[in-house]
């Protein structure tokens, strides 16, 4: 079993707000991130897949296909978007980096055929990242 990690970058805006909380609670919990006009990040995404090396090709996965899936399913949907307003899973879920990692996992896992998704890592800034391994 070999693990392959592909990196990608995207830029998006978001804000944190829970409609079940009062405006004061939202401000207290989410601070600057509660600004309804949104703010942006340059996200770095690392997608790790695992599988056995195909003895004929020497590949664990066709990187060209993986790139196409990543572009189509994730980057086209998230890059240069306002996550709260343009990405359906965040109409109701708060687009924290935690939920972003889960959302990206859910977009990718059903589309991967030859290798298995192992980890989604999302850097919100160089100092902060979230790992998701697919647990419920």
């Amino acid at each position, binding site marked *: *079993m070999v*693990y392959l990690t592909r990196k990608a970058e995207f830029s998006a805006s978001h804000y944190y707000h829970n409609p079940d909380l009062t405006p004061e609670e939202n401000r207290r919990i989410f601070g600057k991130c509660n600004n309804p006009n949104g703010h942006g990040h340059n996200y770095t995404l690392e997608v790790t897949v695992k599988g056995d*090396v195909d003895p004929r*090709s*020497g590949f664990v996965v066709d990187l060209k296909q993986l790139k196409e899936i990543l572009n189509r399913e994730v980057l086209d949907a998230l890059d240069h978007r306002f996550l709260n307003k343009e990405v359906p899973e965040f109409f109701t879920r708060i687009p924290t980096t935690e939920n972003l990692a889960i959302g990206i996992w859910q977009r990718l896992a059903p589309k991967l055929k030859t290798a298995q998704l192992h980890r989604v890592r999302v850097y919100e800034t160089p100092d902060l990242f979230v790992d998701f*391994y697919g647990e419920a």
Partner: protein
Amino acid sequence: MFSASHRLHSEAMSPEENQSTYGKCNNPHGHGHNYALEVTVSGPVDERTGMICNLVDLDNFVDREILERFDHQNLNTLAEFTGEVPTTENLCASIYEIVQGGFRHARLEKVRLEETMMNSFEYAGGAEIRR
């Protein structure tokens, strides 16, 4: 870090299949990468030294057995790749086997090999990698 060239081409495939499988990497003249290598070892901390193993021993081993062997080489010309395509998957596994077979001062956990800033590979002898 080491720099090497390779060409991805399988004798078992037709020219068309080689082209469709490997794309630009099938260029007959080869191409090169700067590979960044990470070797992870584990073990109890020695009470006398406060170390898992002496880093000098690990450095010397990697210099002698890995960098001397692969740096500034054409991977396709090396013995381990006469019957195997030198993909980074296979190179990562080859490096793991060399360290596993020769380094005695700590337990090898995994080898991680970056082919480019965007692509990297990890191998732990076929085992699941611990988080």
